[in-house]
C-alpha cells in the first residue's frame, strides 16, 4: 500500500465565524490529535459544517486562530492547506473520468503523469474500484461515486481528511458498510479525519472522539462512551441516544459524591462539580427497570403504552415527575398497558446534569 499518512493535529483557538449578523461559530477552542477520527455532531444549523469549512479554508474565520500541525493557517486559502475533503454531494467533476477525478489533485500539484496515474490507481484499489478508472462518474452507482470521492481525497495523503455528511445520500445498509470502510482505512493509514454528521448512531460508530455542537458552540467533547454515559447537559443527553430528563434535588455534596433526591428515592451519584440545589437527572431508557410489585427505592407510575419491536419492548410510563421512556430486553415477561407499576433505576444509571 503506497498511500501514506501525514496525519497532523488541528487546533482551534477561540475561532469565530460570522456571516453578517449571524454568528455561525462562536469562540470555539478545540484540539484534535493526529491520527484520530473526530466527529462533529449536532442538529442542522449548529455550525458543524461551518467549522469543517473553516478547517478546509473554504470559509475564513472572522476571529481567532486555526492551526494544522504547528502551522497557523488562519489566513491561508484552501489551496494552500494540506487538507482534503469529501463532500456530501461528492462533487465529482462530471466532465472527467473516475481516474481523472482521482488524479486531479496530483495533477494540479505538479506530480508527473505516470506517478499520478500509479498513485490514483492505488487509491482506487484501496476503495475497491480498481477496474472503474475509465468510467464517467454518471455511470457509477451512488456508493461507487462516494468511494471515488474518498479515493480522490486520500490520494493526496493530506494532513487532515474532512468528511461532510458523506453518507447521507446512501441507503441504510450501504451506509453501515461504507462507514466501516472509512473507519478501516482511517485506522489502517493512521489518518486524522474530521467527520461531520447529524446522525448520532453514525457518530458513535466511527469516532474516536465526538464534538457535539449546538447553537454555534461546543456542547461537549468526549469519547462515544463518555458522551453516552456521562452527558454534560440535557441537550447532549437527549441528542446522543435518548434520555429521560427528570428534575431532582441535590441535598448535599461530600467530596466527589452527591446525595440526590428524586421523589422517595435517595441516590449517591458522582457530583460532577455541581452544588447542592435543584438539578436534573439524565437516565437512558435501558437503565430503567420496571417492577409489577412494590420495591424499595422506586417511583410509582402508570404504564401508558407497551410496544413490541422484536428485539425489545418499549414502554411509556406516567409518573409524578414526568413521563419516562423505558426499554426492556425481556420480551417474554410482559407488563400491560394501564397497569400500576413501579419504576426503578440501575446502577450505574442516572447521571447528574445541571438544572435547565
Amino acid at each position, binding site marked *: 500500500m503506497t498511500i501514506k499518512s501525514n496525519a497532523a493535529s488541528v487546533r482551534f483557538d477561540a475561532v469565530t465565524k460570522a456571516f453578517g449578523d449571524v454568528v455561525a461559530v462562536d469562540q470555539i477552542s478545540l484540539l484534535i490529535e493526529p491520527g484520530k477520527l473526530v466527529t462533529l455532531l449536532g442538529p442542522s444549523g449548529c455550525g458543524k459544517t461551518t467549522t469543517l469549512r473553516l478547517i478546509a479554508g473554504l470559509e475564513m474565520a472572522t476571529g481567532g486562530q486555526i492551526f494544522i500541525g504547528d502551522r497557523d493557517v488562519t489566513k*491561508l486559502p*484552501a489551496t494552500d492547506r494540506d487538507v482534503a475533503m469529501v463532500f456530501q*454531494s461528492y462533487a465529482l*467533476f462530471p466532465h472527467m473520468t473516475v481516474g481523472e477525478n482521482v488524479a486531479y489533485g496530483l495533477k*494540479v500539484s505538479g506530480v508527473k503523469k505516470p506517478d499520478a496515474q500509479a498513485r490514483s490507481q492505488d487509491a482506487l484499489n484501496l476503495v475497491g474500484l480498481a477496474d472503474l478508472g475509465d468510467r464517467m462518474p454518471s455511470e457509477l452507482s451512488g456508493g461507487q461515486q462516494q468511494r471515488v470521492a474518498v479515493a480522490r481525497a486520500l490520494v493526496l495523503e493530506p494532513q487532515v481528511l474532512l468528511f461532510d455528511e458523506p453518507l447521507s445520500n446512501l441507503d441504510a445498509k450501504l451506509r453501515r458498510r461504507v462507514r466501516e470502510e472509512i473507519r478501516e482505512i482511517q485506522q489502517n493509514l493512521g489518518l486524522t479525519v474530521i467527520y461531520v454528521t447529524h446522525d448520532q448512531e453514525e457518530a458513535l460508530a466511527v469516532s474516536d472522539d465526538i464534538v457535539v455542537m449546538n447553537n454555534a458552540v461546543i456542547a461537549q467533547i468526549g469519547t462515544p462512551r463518555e458522551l453516552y454515559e456521562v452527558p454534560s447537559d440535557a441537550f447532549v443527553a437527549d441528542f446522543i441516544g435518548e434520555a429521560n430528563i427528570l428534575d431532582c434535588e441535590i441535598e448535599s455534596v461530600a467530596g466527589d459524591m452527591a446525595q440526590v433526591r428524586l421523589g422517595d428515592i435517595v441516590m449517591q451519584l458522582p457530583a460532577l462539580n455541581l452544588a447542592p440545589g435543584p438539578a436534573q437527572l439524565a437516565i437512558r431508557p435501558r437503565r430503567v427497570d420496571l417492577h409489577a410489585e412494590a420495591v424499595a427505592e422506586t417511583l410509582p407510575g402508570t404504564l401508558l403504552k407497551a410496544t413490541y419491536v422484536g428485539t425489545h419492548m418499549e414502554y411509556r410510563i406516567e409518573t409524578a415527575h414526568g413521563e419516562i421512556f423505558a426499554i426492556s430486553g425481556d420480551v417474554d415477561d410482559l407488563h400491560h398497558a394501564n397497569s400500576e407499576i413501579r419504576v426503578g433505576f440501575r446502577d450505574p444509571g442516572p447521571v447528574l446534569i445541571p438544572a435547565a
Partner: protein
Amino acid sequence: MNKFVALWLAVGLIGFFVLPWYTTDDAFVSFTWLRDGWPLDADYAPAIIQIFAHGKIWLAPLILFFAAVVPVLRGNPSDRLFAATLTFAGAGGLVFLLLQGFTIGIAGWEYASLEALFGPVERQFGMGAGAVLVAAAFLFLLTQGFAARGYVGGDLFVAGSIGLIIALITAFVFFPVSRILVSAFQDNQGVYAFSLFAEKISDSKIWGLRCLSENVSCGVAWNSLMLAVSVGIGSTLLGLAFALVTTRARLKMGKAFRVLTVLPIITPPFVIGLAMILLFGRAGVVTQFMASTFDIPPTRWIYGFTGIWLAQMLAFTPIAFLVLIGVVEGVSPSMEEAAQTLRADAWTTFSTVSFPLMRPGLANAFLLGFIESMADFGNPFVLGGNYGVLSTEIFFAIVGAQNDQGGAAVLAIVLLAFTLTAFYVQRRWVGKKSYVTVTGKGDAGLHAMLPKRLTWLIFAIVIPWTFMMLVIYCMVMFGGFVETWGRDHSFTMRHYADAFSVTTGEHGLIWSGAAWNSFWTTISISAIAAPLTAGLGLLTAYLLVRQRFAGREAFEFGTMLSFAIPGTVIGISYILAFNIPPLELTGTGIILIICFMFRNMPVGLRAGVAAMSQLDKNLDEASLTLGANSFTTVRNVILPLLRPAIAAALVFSFVRAITSVSAVIFLVSADYHMATAYIIGRVENGDYGLAIAYSSVLILVMLAAVSLVQLVISRRKLGRRTAVAGAEQAGAVAT
C-alpha cells in the same frame, strides 16, 4: 522570496526603465522605436530618461513607490507589515500616476491654479506601453496587499481579478460615461445649468401621452419602453421555442435549426431592415403580390412599431436562443424524471419543473432582449417611420441639425433609467432560489419529451418564422447579384468585383477591391476583441457567482452599465474621454477593441452567470481542497463545464464586434475603418448592391466562425446518456 511581488515589481521596473513611456504611434509594434533613437529620443524614451533628459521630473516620485516594495520581497504574506507596505506602495503609485496624468497634459498644466503654484512645466502626451506596465504593476501589488489582509479569502487570483476588472471598468465605462452625463447638466457653452436639465428631462417629446387620445406620436420614452418590453417578451418566448425544438424535440434537423437560428445575429445591421422593406414595404414584393392578387391596397404598415418589432425580433431572438439553449440543456434530467415518477404527465412536468428551473435563463434572456431593443439603432433608423425611439433620437440629437449634446445626454439618462430598472426587476424576479442542477453527483437521466400540445404550438410558431427568415435571407443573397436591388434585376457580379476583386501585380497579389481594407481590419479587430471580451465576461461572471466580496452589487452594476448605454452615447463619450492624455486612444485600433470589450462583455457575463449558477459550488470547493488554486479551478473545472456559455460568449462577441454600428461610427479612423461604417456609407448613398454584397460576405465569414466555435467547444461532456444508449446503460447504473 515572494515570487508574485517579485514578478510585478519586475514588470513595473521594465515599464519604468525600458519601454517607451509615452504613446509611440505604430513604431512600438513595428519595433522601429528600437533603432529610431531609443532610449534617448524624447518620443521613445523610458520614464527614467524622460526624467533626466527631457525634464519630466514629475515622474521621478514613482520610483519611490517601487523602492518601498523592495524590503518586503522576502516578507511573509501573513505579516501585517507586508500587507500594509504593498497596499501603500500599490495605491500610492496608482494615485500618483493618475494625478500626474490628469494634471499635466498636452499643453502643460491642465489647471491654471497649479501653474501659478508650481510654475510652467513641459507638456506630455498620452501614456504608452511603459506607463501601462507600471500601472498594472501598481494595481497588482495593491491587490496582493489586499489579499494578504485576508480579503476574498486571501486568494491572489481572485483579488487580482477583482482589482483588474474594477480598474478597467472605471477607466473604460465610468470615466467616459461620466464625461457625457455631465453634459446633460451643461448648456452648449459648457456652463452648468440645472434648470435647463429639468426643462429638457420633462419635455413632452419624451413623456407625451397624447397618443392615447389623439392620432399623434407618444413621447419617445413610452415608445421605447413599449417596444423594448414587447421585444423582450417576444424574443424570450421565441428563443425558448427554438431552444426547445433544438434540444427536446429530438429532430433530425436539430443542427440545421441551430445554424438557422443564429443567422440574424451574424447579419450586419440595416440588412434585415432593407430586406423587409423590399418584401413588405409599400412597393415590396409581398405587398405588390397581395395587391394584384387579393386587391389589398399597399400601405406603409411596415414603417413604425410593427416593422421595428418584427425586425428586432428577427435580430434578437438568437440572443435569447443562445442564452436559453444552455439553460434548457442544463436542467437536470433527473429532476424531470423525478417529476414523471411522481405521476406528473408531460405537461405538468414541463410547467412545474422544467419551466421554473429555466427561470433564471428566461429572466436573463428577457433582460438582454429588452436592453438590446432599447439600445438598437439600425432597425428603428430604417423602419421607424414616425415612431421615434430614444436611441435614434439620441443619435440625431448629436449628429442632427441641432447638435444638442446635452439633449442627447438627457435622453441617455432616461434610457439608462429604463434599462437599469429592468435589471433590478429581473433580479427581484429570479430571487434567491437555488437553481443548481448540475451537481457533483453523476446525473444519468434523459431529458423529458415535450408535451404534445406544446410541441404543436412550438412548431406552429417556429416553422412560419423560419420560413420568413429563409425568404429574407434569400432576398439578401439575391440582392448582391442584381444590378439595382428592387429595380433592375439583371444578373451581375459587379458588386462583388467592386468590393472584393483581387488582381495580380508584379509583387504578387493586389487586393484591389474597395472593401478589402475595412474587411481585414474588421476581421482582425473582432478576432482580437472576441476572446478578450468573452474572457472578461466569464471572469466577471465567476467573480459575481462564486465570490463574496465587499461592493459586489456595485461591481455588477458597473459591468452592466456600458451595455445599457446606447452605442452612440458610448461612441461620443469615448471620444470625449480618450482623445486627450492620459489615455490617448482615438484613432487607434485599441479604442475599437476596448469599446467592443466593454459593450459586449455583459453578454458573456449573463451567459456565464446563468450557466454558472447551475453548477454546484462544491465542485469548485472540491478542486480547491484538492490543492488547485482558484485559477486552476477555473481552468480545469469551471471552464470545461461552461463550454456552451463560452461558445456563446465567443461567438457573440466576435459577431457583435463585426456587426456593431452606432458606437463604431465615431471611433473608426482612416487606418482602422470598420466594415459596418463602410456599409452605412454605401447605404446612405443608395448603393445597396455593394452594401448587400459586402454584408453577404460578412455573413459567410461569421457563419464559418460560428460553426468552427460550435464544433470545437460546444456541448458539455457530462456522460448523460443519449436516447439510443440509454436502455443499454440502465442496467450498468443499477449497481
